[in-house]
């Protein structure tokens, strides 16, 4: 079974995003960019399925600027077999991303598409579910365990309050949550090897997808600042303050 793993180039999760002074967005100039952490987990899961013999080939896909190539090379260095870059300098919304991925899935015929549950820039948490809808496939979102069983896959999901397991007919969509695995670091030899793995370059038009945004961003601002309060000097003082605030009786 072939696995398709979409990956997104986003601001590194250790960097504090700064809102642009003109309120048009977040300043990404000269900021460290990395693979979306949830997508790293998706790549790792695909590699583990291949290592277990449940998958034969891993195709990484990224939709984004030319520099998203670096993200794809990271996926290849981790262990993906080949990559597709759908290059566009425009911001592409999850719905359009899902449409492009659906077109690629129709071409590539993967048994599963494994992707991060959300990207840490727009925090939309939509692409996987939308892709599942467009393809008419089942969806195992927020996965903490993935077990392929013949023509089906059991996905354990992180839900509010605990875990839930669903059984999906293949082909299916899986979106990853944090506990699914711990992604490996690419070794230096594998980083070198990744440079010669195949990377195809495409555009959204190649897949007949219109990427004009449906949502217009009117403004982006800093969240309201929280003023630091006071330091208390003892547990007794803390309890007094909590009583005054009505937190404890």
């Amino acid at each position, binding site marked *: 079974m072939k696995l398709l793993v979409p990956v997104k180039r986003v601001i590194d999760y250790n960097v504090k995003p700064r809102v642009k002074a003109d309120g048009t967005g977040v300043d990404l100039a000269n900021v460290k960019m990395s693979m979306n952490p949830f997508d790293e987990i998706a790549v790792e899961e695909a590699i583990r399925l291949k290592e277990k013999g449940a998958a034969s080939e891993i195709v990484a896909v990224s939709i984004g600027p030319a520099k998203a190539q670096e993200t794809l090379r990271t996926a290849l260095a981790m262990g993906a077999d080949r990559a597709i870059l759908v290059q566009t300098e425009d911001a592409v919304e999850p719905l359009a991303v899902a449409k492009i991925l659906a077109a690629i899935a129709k071409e590539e015929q993967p048994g599963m598409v494994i992707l991060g549950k959300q990207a840490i820039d727009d*925090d939309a948490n939509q692409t996987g579910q939308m892709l599942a809808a467009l393809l008419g496939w089942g969806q195992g979102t927020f996965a903490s365990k993935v077990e392929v069983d013949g023509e089906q896959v059991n996905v354990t*999901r992180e*839900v509010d309050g605990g875990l*839930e397991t*669903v059984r999906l007919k293949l082909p299916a969509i899986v979106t990853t949550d944090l506990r699914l695995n711990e992604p490996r670091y690419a070794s230096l030899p594998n980083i070198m090897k990744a440079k010669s793995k195949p990377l195809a370059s495409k555009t959204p038009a190649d897949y007949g997808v219109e990427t004009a945004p*449906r949502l217009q961003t009117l403004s982006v*601002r800093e969240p309201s600042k929280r003023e630091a309060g006071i330091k208390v000097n003892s547990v007794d003082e*803390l309890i007094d303050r909590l009583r005054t605030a009505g937190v404890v009786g």
Partner: protein
Amino acid sequence: MIALVLVEHEGGHLKDATLSAVTAAAKLGEVHALVAGEGVGAVAEAAAKIAGVARVHVADGGAYAHQLAENVAPVAVAIVNDHCDYFVAAATTTGKNVAPRVAALLDVMQVSDVIAIEGPDTFVRPIYAGNAIATVKSSDAKKVLTVRGTAFEKAAAEGGSGVVEPYAGGGDAGLSSFVGAEIAASERPELTSAKIIVSGGRALGSSDAFHQYIEPLADKLGAAVGASRAAVDAGYVPNDYQVGQTGKIVAPECYVAIGISGAIQHLAGMKDSKLIVAINKDEEAPIFQVADLGLVGDLFKIVPELTEKL
């Protein structure tokens, strides 16, 4: 304008998140509710009583028993196409699972995690884990939203007199089935709806210490127990305790952070709490920059004293 709200329920009871979603939907127009499940007559009656709900559509049958997105989404799409302008779901794991599927089937770009409604097509939502707040305008004819429960008051659970009508059609899409669930059985309140949360961080040093120090204080306060990502990564508690950018976003009346330094990603998950209390031995810890009440000192001495004196 009519807004269809996805009703969340468990064990025959409405979930609080639905009441917040109804408040958000009421700002957009007349509120209709969708109850999908098996044997959900009582839930439908309860939904009809929510103040502001005009109609309740009930999809009752085995295919909807576990609210699988593959089976619920087509029902929502059919109702929205028939007579609604909005589909609104709470930004819970259930809402986040179903809503984008509905959006894609309607060919609509969803607006996720809405924290304010500024007009019929204009919404405010956090991006970059709350480090930036975006105002967006949707150009789609029908709109799909998930709304953050902590940003909208709960609608009154009584006082409404909605009309209940069964939905015929739909069924099992044959794509998925429910295998089982392990829902943590806890006497404590759920993190996302708790009035008080006591959270522990890496400074606890071990799983034993976490249980020994954090839980008695939480129980004394009737609080839910949370944790920082560092504490989860260190294996002190399971992942569903995690508060932060990648865990649960909470905004209780009072949040007590114990031995938590206050990494960006943790602050993103709790900084909208009404009252923040921080206990940490490092007086330079970033958590004190957002705390209303800070106490610098050794948590292993302070926490037992606090628990005893409360």
